[in-house]
């Protein structure tokens, strides 16, 4: 088990190193930020001074090593545009995205898995057919459109829920959160639902397919032959046996939604990192882009690492390194 953790940890470190190179070079290749941060009427001297101050006169590899050196000390540079530390800038936005994404992915998973198990367990009932219709809808309707419809219906037409913003927030550990207040929660509902719809559809499919497959196996027949009740079979056998792909997708979704909740954040004016990165790309605020991508890579690697640990925890075959 310890060997497994160490091995996965080293893998994660290598991935992060490779990612930092790719991100740095990729972003370097896009446009020249000098044209944006310095007014066109500035003199050559001011221009040269700015280039030196930003370190843009050094060779690429030197810039990279300075970047990595700073990175390891927790310094991701200063935003060209806002002129404050990037970490502060992103850190101020991350909690908003974090709470929105966690709430939407977790509820999509809990609801989707329950509905999917039901649909797989009773594939011929009309309830299951309705569930599957919802899942087809969730897959095929574009997210921005759903967002607009949600606003039109619940915010404009019914007036039940606010159309945008974070609402009241509470400070915990020096960070502002919306979820502990009723007003904040009411602001989260619509964007979370918007983000969750696609994931809900996917979780339903995944759980249904797993359930249908597992229910036909000898493991389930044998459990029935031993006289186990259906409830026990679902709880103790089925749930474990379908969990691996569900946890995998949960991790992937968590990572990718954290990174790319842009559309929903824009529609609901949710002040998260998605909006920040879009703004930074349009003005070529390179430190913000680099830091953002590094943080996203770090989130992905961390999530994958945790997921691997969870696998080892629930599946003895992974834990024991068996191939079966």
């Amino acid at each position, binding site marked *: 088990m310890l060997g497994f953790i160490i091995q996965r940890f080293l893998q994660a470190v290598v991935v992060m190193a490779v990612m930092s190179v790719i991100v740095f070079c990729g972003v370097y290749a896009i446009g020249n930020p000098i044209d944006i941060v310095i007014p066109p009427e500035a003199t050559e001297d001011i221009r040269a001074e700015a280039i030196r101050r930003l370190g843009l006169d050094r060779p690429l590899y030197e810039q990279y090593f300075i970047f990595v050196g700073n990175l390891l000390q927790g310094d991701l540079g200063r935003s060209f545009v806002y002129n404050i530390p990037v970490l502060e800038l992103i850190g101020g936005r991350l909690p908003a995205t974090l709470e929105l994404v966690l709430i939407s992915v977790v509820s999509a998973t809990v609801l989707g898995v329950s509905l999917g198990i039901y649909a797989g367990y009773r594939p011929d009932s009309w309830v299951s057919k309705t569930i599957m219709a919802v899942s087809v809808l969730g897959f095929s309707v574009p997210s921005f459109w759903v967002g607009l419809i949600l606003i039109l219906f619940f915010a404009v037409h019914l007036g039940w829920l606010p159309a945008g913003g974070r609402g009241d927030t509470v400070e915990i550990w020096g960070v502002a959160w919306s979820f502990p207040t009723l007003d904040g929660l009411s602001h989260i509902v619509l964007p979370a639902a918007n983000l969750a719809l696609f994931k809900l559809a996917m979780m339903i499919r995944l759980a249904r397919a797993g359930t249908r497959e597992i229910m036909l196996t000898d493991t389930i027949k044998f*459990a029935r*032959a031993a*006289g186990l009740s259906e409830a026990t079979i679902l709880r103790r056998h089925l749930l474990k046996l379908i969990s691996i792909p569900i946890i995998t997708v949960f991790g992937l979704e968590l990572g990718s939604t954290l990174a790319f909740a842009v559309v929903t954040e824009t529609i609901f004016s949710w002040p998260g990192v998605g909006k920040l990165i879009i703004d930074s790309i349009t003005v070529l605020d390179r430190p913000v882009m680099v830091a953002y991508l590094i943080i996203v890579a770090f989130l992905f690697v961390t999530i994958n690492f945790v997921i691997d640990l969870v696998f080892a925890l629930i599946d003895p075959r992974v834990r024991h390194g068996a191939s079966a």
Partner: protein
Amino acid sequence: MTEPVLSVKNLSTHFFTRGGVVKAVDGVSFDLARGEIMGLVGESGSGKTVTGFSLIGLVDAPGRIVEGSVKLNGTELTTLSEKAMRTRRGNEISMIFQDPIATLNPMLTIGQQMKLAIDAHERLSPQAAEARSAELLTQVGIPSAKARLRAYPHEFSGGMRQRVAIAIALLHRPAVIVADEPTTALDVSIQAQILFQMRDLARETGTAMIWISHDLAVVSSLASKLAVMYAGRIVEQGPTATLLRDPRHPYTAGLIASLPAMAKPGTPLTQIPGSTPSLLSLPPGCPFAPRCDHADDVCKTAPALTMQGNRGWRCYHPVGQDAGVPA
């Protein structure tokens, strides 16, 4: 004569598929006495497994028992509610399957799986449940049973996994065990070990067994009586020794002739020509007719069961009757 523990009368299980009605089990009858082992033999697709599932009340849709009676210790099972049936499954009648790799849950320890099977029928303290589980594992020949309760299925060999499955099936000392080819997937040597261990267990505990197999040689070393199944029907049944020595049905005779032990040295093994008919389009009359040397016009109507003492067969032209004295 004592009351049989299991009495099956005219049992029919049909599958109502898009393509038509599959009569997987069609009028099967037999009795099983306490501790008795019956071999149920037949080719692939003859309905052996469906018979087993019908007995424990686990026929999958689109199938269902359409007719007949299954009496276990005097209780009619076919009309029981699912809830009442569940309290008997694994308790009074249990079943084990062919592939021990597939039957156990890879993500639960052996002890957890045995505990689930115990909890399904009894309230036992964790200590008592563990003691019972270890006792059963020891009985089926698993060394250092207590420690093995914490192991996962993948830490066992195929033969050992099948022993675990058998132990689970025996947890509540059922009156009847349906064993659906439990040794087919195993090495021959392990197969023999398990076979004889099961026979001894049946003897000691008084558990009756239905041993399903397509291999007549395996079954006849174990079972005191045989039922030969063909296209959903039992075409011949009786004491093992009698059937082997003096079969009546041409199909039974064919099976016996194809046994390696029966062949004269140097001659090729006899095979029954043709293959199992599709149960969807069974011709009226004797289902064996297309493959039978003795078939004639009478065989175009289904042959009824002919009983003679403790044996019976379904054939208009039984073999061996002119030649020998019936046993």
